[in-house]
């Protein structure tokens, strides 16, 4: 499991200014670390589609937002994602909770559809399962930012 302090420290160091999120039970454990960060501003939204649009306004206004939500939220927010990443062509980065990834033979359809949906969107993604993977996530973030393209970090979860 990836810890909040590890994520908060790494992405603050990477230059992220705002975290725009809706938590699930795994990502939610990050809340204290995100709130206590001196460098990150935590912004809560009411529904996942809002996260992409809010992050878009922040990026256009000169900030470096990070979007955080569960894979179910990724599905819910498809039209906002489409608009922001493909109409507006903004190079936003998101961490997506990969519900049930760690549960062998899980029948969870959220697990089954996550990677096919990302592939259908043509979005580049990297899977992270433990804190040891956080440096690679940050490298991926930097690579996407340098190439001015969107990217996704998949956060392995149990039940999410």
């Amino acid at each position, binding site marked *: 499991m990836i810890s909040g302090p590890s994520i908060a420290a790494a992405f603050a160091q990477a230059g992220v200014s*705002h975290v725009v999120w809706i938590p699930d039970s795994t990502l939610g454990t990050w809340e204290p670390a995100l709130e206590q960060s001196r460098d990150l*501003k935590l*912004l*809560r*939204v*009411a*529904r996942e*589609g*809002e996260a*992409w*649009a*809010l*992050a*878009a*306004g*922040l*990026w*256009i*206004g*000169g*900030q470096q*937002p990070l979007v955080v939500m569960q894979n179910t939220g990724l599905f819910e927010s498809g*039209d*906002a994602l*489409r*608009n*922001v990443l493909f*109409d*507006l*062509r*903004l190079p936003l980065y998101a961490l997506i909770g990969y519900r049930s990834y760690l549960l062998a033979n899980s029948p969870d359809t959220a697990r089954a559809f996550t990677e096919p949906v990302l592939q259908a969107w043509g979005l580049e993604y990297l899977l992270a399962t433990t804190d040891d993977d956080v440096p690679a996530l940050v490298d991926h973030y930097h690579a996407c930012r340098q190439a001015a393209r969107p990217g996704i970090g998949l956060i392995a979860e149990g039940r999410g």
Partner: protein
Amino acid sequence: MSHDMHRKARARMPFVPALAGLAACRDQEIVVTTMGAAREWPKLSSHPLDFHYLPSTMGQAPLVALGLALAQPGREVICLNGDGCMLMNLGALVTIRAAAAVNLTLVVMDNGLYEVTGGQQTVAAVAQTDFAGFARAAGWPSVLEFDTLDDWQVAAPKLTEAPGPRFVVLHVEPIGPAYQLPSLGPMSERIAKFRQALGVA
């Protein structure tokens, strides 16, 4: 009384003069437009801080405006939204209030119709929904509502003096049968120019 008669019974101001009332007193505010406002505002203004959110995701213009307001706390941001758009994302009222963006003004141009699809009534028009009441319930510090052009023209120049974020409902007439969204050029180029105007490019 039919639902349509309910919609028409309310006093409404003409759409374009309502926007013109704001354009006449606009200074260095960022103005975010969508739907009907994105069609008419470019005829009234060619300011480098105009951001026409088109193509859009319906309902998300207030969130784009919120992001701009948080990113640029030294600037006022005015979002010109539609009632159908507002209805599609009422949660934005809560999100914006929680973010405490004191430099944001959200204006809802309420004509009770989906003009972009031919003028069908919104479900809010059928239910006679009180958008201002939603904003009050969400805790917005300033909630204003106008149905006559005279009242709106008096209030518009002092709009950003009220504590923010501010929620404004303008009860307007439909634009009309010639409704058509404009072609404003490639979005990526417009974003680059807008960021240049903000000094963040």
